[in-house]
């Protein structure tokens, strides 16, 4: 059946030219959708299919021993709600996010301010500062493990110079030091990422506005909050969002340093999911966990985006 589209034969007759024009306009309007359709399809396949598949698997009962693909309802979701280790790992993840994120932001911003001036050797320093970002996180974790080594690691040695006696801190074992150790490694690696983005944003702030404010007697804080911050806000918000998502799936550095220990005290949601899914093959349970995390993240991000007003 012909839908009466843009064929001249169908539109001929009374009012034909007007109809032809309208059809042509509609085709023009739809053309852009046809152009982006393949890309959207690919994104849906790549992005949405795994999510839907995860949801389906989470309602089955695939384990190491059983490949039971019958529908089990929300069995795993109910179990997750009662799984203390899941909630603890979520809490640990949250701790890493709320401590590391502001630290990276503040240090990144401070460094960006420092390098805003055209200092001699600036480009070399910037390039050196960016090195941690291009290091593989698992390599960074392994390197920090060596640095924290209580026998051969330089960190205890340097602390010992200040203390005047050997410092036997077990950074990767002692519950008092495992969080600082992980956070130091994480902040070291990703502060340069913040620094780079914020340096770019700061470089684009209109200097004439700042100079005008200074002439009017505005201090640093007032200038920063009224002029600089609004100017760099869109970039900063995106940087914070990217890092928050990265931190939420924190795995490598912790795996290299503590493997989630002592006990499960530094186990993040990613580590718990890895252990359950890929070492113990609790496939459906892990899928339920993954889907729940997706939901939590989706809701959180939506709320944050609205709050940040960067989705407009």
């Amino acid at each position: 059946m012909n839908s009466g589209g843009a064929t001249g034969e169908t539109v001929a007759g009374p009012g034909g030219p007007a109809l032809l024009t309208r059809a042509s306009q509609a085709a023009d309007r739809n053309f852009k959708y046809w152009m982006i359709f393949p890309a959207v399809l690919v994104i849906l396949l790549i992005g949405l299919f795994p999510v839907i598949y995860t949801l389906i698997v989470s309602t089955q009962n695939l384990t190491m021993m059983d490949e039971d693909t019958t529908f089990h309802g929300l069995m795993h979701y109910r179990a997750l709600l009662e799984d203390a280790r899941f909630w603890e790992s979520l809490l640990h993840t949250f701790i890493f996010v709320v401590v590391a994120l502001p630290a990276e932001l503040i240090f990144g911003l401070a460094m960006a301010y420092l390098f805003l001036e055209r200092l001699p050797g600036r480009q070399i320093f910037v390039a050196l500062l960016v090195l941690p970002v291009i290091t593989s996180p698992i390599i960074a974790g392994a390197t920090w493990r060596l640095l924290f080594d209580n026998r051969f690691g330089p960190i205890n040695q340097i602390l010992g110079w200040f203390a005047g006696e050997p410092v036997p801190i077990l950074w990767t074992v002692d519950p008092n030091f495992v969080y600082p150790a992980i956070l130091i490694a994480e902040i070291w690696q990703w502060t340069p990422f913040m620094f780079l983005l914020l340096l770019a944003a700061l470089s684009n702030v209109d200097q004439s506005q700042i100079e005008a404010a200074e002439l009017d007697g505005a201090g640093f804080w007032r200038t920063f909050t009224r002029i600089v911050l609004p100017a760099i806000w869109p970039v900063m918000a995106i940087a914070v969002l990217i890092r928050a998502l990265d931190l939420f799936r924190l795995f490598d550095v912790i795996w290299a340093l503590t493997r989630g220990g002592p006990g499960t005290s530094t186990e993040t949601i990613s580590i718990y999911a890895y252990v359950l899914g890929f070492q113990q093959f609790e496939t459906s349970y892990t899928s339920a966990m993954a889907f729940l995390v997706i939901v939590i993240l989706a809701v959180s991000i939506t709320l944050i985006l609205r709050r940040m007003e960067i989705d407009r």
Partner: protein
Amino acid sequence: MDRRKFVLSASALAGASAFGLPRLANAQAAKTAVEAAKQFAGTEISIVWEAGLQSLDPLNFSGPLWEKGTGIKVKVIEVPVAEMFTKILQEHRAGTGAYDALNVIPSWMPDLVRAGALEDLDPYVDKYGYRDELNAIAPVYRDNQMTVDGKIYGFPDDGDVFIMYYRKDILGDPKIQAAYKEKYGTDLPVPPKTWLEFDQVGSLITEVTGGKPYGAAFFREQAYGNFMFQERFRAEGGKFFDADTMKATINSPEGVKVLNDWVAENKWMPAGVETWGFVENLAAFLNGDTAMTVSWPPYGRWAAGYGTDEEALSWVPKSKVAGKVGYALPPGGHPQLAAGFALSVSSDSKNKDAAYLFIQWLNSAEISLERVQLPYALRDPFRDNHFASEEYKKLWPEAPEYLAALQAGAVSGLLDLSIIQTDRYEEGLRQAISRLWGGDDPQTILDETAASWDQVTDKIGIDKQKAAYQAWASKPNAYPK
């Protein structure tokens, strides 16, 4: 076995050994495999092997030799040991048939068999006449690490066993011996045979020498500590489960004693020993910083300087203790048969006969004797002919003593726990050890670990797990006699 049968068997064994029959038979299995495999010339088989040093064996030695003899190319798929189980199971689930032959840790075998990932090897063993030669594998490996539910799923191929290494010069030092006698009123035991003696000797050495060297050190890091706990817990008389109720019993007084003893020992061991793994412990012993340690067999070879000139072993510190090291069973006399490897065939292989013939050839007495002598590889003696090899005994001056210790371990060694989803239980133990080093109370740690074990058992099903546990516990080397 009655006396008559024993005498007959012993006579037959002695006669066979005297006339070199095992060697003749051994040569046959390798030859049979090569001849039968020639029909598959021009094909390629893949084998999963632990990445790193382990895989230098098939890459540099056995793979090329097999290809030369049969025309079958061997593709070595290197996988880190921590990911081998996952990869094997994932490929099986996906049904890719990417792997033909496999290296599997024997304690994984029941899980892999239940998942259908391993091929039953019995028909192949009969078809290619390997049964007699298979039986010449040291009993502890043959009787414990080869079968699941009475069927052969893997050929034990690595005599992994914990051995105690001790400095003969330090334990024999008259000053230390005199101090020991003065303190404890008895002669210093060389080597210590109980954990009490070990503690006394080790702490005294540290006291007398001021830590140069320390009395001993171990790898305490959780992954290795898991094996050491399993050994020592059972040597103390502990049982993992109540065989009737399947309630975990690792929180028994024996378990708590082990953890308390560990904490006490750390005080006279090097600072930070809690974080030591394989390499840290090795470096300390080879450098002469510790007088005693317990580890896998390569420590003994490297301490003697055997193979450490090889480029592949350039990372191993040069031994400063060569010629000074004695070998013995760890205190308690029941070493852990920690990890080890068995050779299996993937049930998804598209070339099962060729894969089988390759592992028969690798595992044969003739070829395996060459493989366990490769200076860079990590396969340890596991066959009667390895322990008796005159060739091996000449590799370094103390090699006969070394082989004797390994052979003794191959009699009294203790199996790794191997039930349904063993890793879930071992994960609990690993976490328990890391909590111990974090300062938690041993009783609390083990109570909570036992509770987590019970949860796992409940989830798997008590009856199902009980049957698996009983099958494991009935093996000759599950618990000390």
